[in-house]
């Protein structure tokens, strides 16, 4: 953490993450968003920023700022949950393939390569359209399609650890394979997994935004992507309602950039050889 703060990229990333986390966790408590609280008449629709609505109103006359706060929460939540799934699947497969090598490795890496080249977005759209628009489906779809890169990275690291002296030594002392994985392999690949995970969150948040923008978001749980979807289909752009489509976009940019900066900085600290940028 201290090292992250010392690195300029890491520091800006941490600040961005702290601000978004604050917005996502604290703000909705004090400014909850009620989707049913629609405007009274046509005059309250897509109005610009004012004293009653600091960030204007949407196509149903609802407050955009409150929606923005709730949206932060949903975007962050979906991104993190999908990342948890992706990291567990990816690291698990990577460690097993790299440790056991041989045929198991061959089969697992074949599958990984397949998912690595298959375009993720069309697959996510197809799955999302078939299994319905709810937040669990979205998390599962993104999580189960974002693991191949993690699996590849973790596998190659495990493979090189496997060649080191301590594996046969532990084995000759009577350790089981699972025990060696737990006590020797996992702790060594952990920094790599963490650095990769931070970058995966960024990707998952972008995926969620895209899926929701396509119209596959959970209509009851409005995320930043869902806001952009509704602003797009309601013609907010044509009516010049910038207060509706600018904030969620900047929100996504801000948080994704935050995770990307922290991820790269963490990578640089744990693996000095990669330290390209400074």
């Amino acid at each position, binding site marked *: 953490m201290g090292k992250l703060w010392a690195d300029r990229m890491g520091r800006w990333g941490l600040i961005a993450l702290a601000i978004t986390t604050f917005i996502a966790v604290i703000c909705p408590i004090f400014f909850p968003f009620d989707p049913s609280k629609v405007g009274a008449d046509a005059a309250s629709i897509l109005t610009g920023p004012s004293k009653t609505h600091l960030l204007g109103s949407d196509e149903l006359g609802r407050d955009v700022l409150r929606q923005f706060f709730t949206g932060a929460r949903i975007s962050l939540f979906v991104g993190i949950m999908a990342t948890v799934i992706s990291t567990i699947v990816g690291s698990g497969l990577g460690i097993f393939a790299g440790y056991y090598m041989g045929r198991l490795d061959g089969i697992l890496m074949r599958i990984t390569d397949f998912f690595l080249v298959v375009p993720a977005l069309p697959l996510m759209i197809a799955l999302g359209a078939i299994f319905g628009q709810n937040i669990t489906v979205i998390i599962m779809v993104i999580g189960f399609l974002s693991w191949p890169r993690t699996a590849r990275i973790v596998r190659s690291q495990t493979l090189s650890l496997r060649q080191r002296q301590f594996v046969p030594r532990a084995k000759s002392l009577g350790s089981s394979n699972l025990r060696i994985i737990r006590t020797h392999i996992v702790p060594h690949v952990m920094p790599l997994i963490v650095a990769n995970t931070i970058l995966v969150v960024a990707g998952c948040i972008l995926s969620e935004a*895209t899926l929701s923008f396509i119209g596959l978001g959970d209509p009851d749980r409005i995320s930043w992507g869902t806001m952009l979807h509704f602003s797009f289909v309601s013609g907010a752009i044509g009516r010049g309602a910038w207060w509706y489509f600018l904030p969620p*976009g900047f929100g996504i940019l801000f948080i994704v950039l935050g995770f990307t900066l922290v991820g790269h900085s963490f990578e640089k600290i744990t693996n000095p050889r990669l330290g390209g940028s400074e």
Partner: protein
Amino acid sequence: MPFLLRRFFTLLSSIFAIVTFNFFLFHIIPGDPIRLIARTQRLNAEAIAKMRASFGLDGSILSQYFRYLSKLVHGDLGYSFSFKENVSGLVGRALGNTLLLLTASTLIVVILGIAIGVFAGSRQGKKSDTATVISSLILWSMPTFWVGMLLVFTFGVWVGGLPISGISTANAVYSNGFEYFMDISRHLILPTVTLAIVDIAFFIIITRTALIDVMTEDYMLTARGKGLGRRAIVWRHGFRNAMLPVLTASALYISALVGGAIQVEVVFSWPGMGLLMYNSVLARDYPVLEASFLLTTVAVLVANFAADLLYRVLDPRVAVSK
């Protein structure tokens, strides 16, 4: 050529896997597909049986699967109820439009991205390099569709001046082919720029990293020792060797490129595969969604195969070591 055969076999088995997966996804999993296709509960048994037969959903799963395969091989992708025409015609036209968009933006991305990446990489650590890296990371963090929305707002509403929707002007009469070409080109500008803005970041970053890697090689020291100028070192020795890792990374990037194109097409109503997919999701038109998903995926698999072959041609070392 054992490698070529092996790689071709992988391609075929991947396509076979995706076709099979596609079959199960759209025919087996979501409850009763007839309900989804008919979108009504009020059908008598006779009508259901009729529809079942016409969509190839009668008989055992295995016989359904083989019938599906044979239809696919014959180019029969079913009928779209929302567009009221054969799916194969729909996706055929859409694929061409998507390829046009992808070609235009890829040209910009590759040329500009590599040039900027080499520029930044050869000035590692300087202010101009840091600025390039930071702006690339910012571009990289923007959702593609949102960049498109910003451009629509800027050029369609705020400043104006460029078409923001479709591939050509509606009901336009062209006096010659050139006018038609110019109209399409004008419509192509914003979608292409949107796609390029986000994708260029990726190319800048990988080119820069690859060049920095190459610059530490021994032969670069030799080149400097020979008294070669900076420009010759960077471009003739550095750039050419840095291109191989860039090509490897680009192959994996093809699928992301397609993802970006889908978003851009939705924002700009560009009549390609992405817009088709989007409209079929909105209309819950499963035959169209299925076909556009399948065709896009197979196209990406084939493109990856081609990139792999190209890599062998460009880097003889790989061919020898295999």
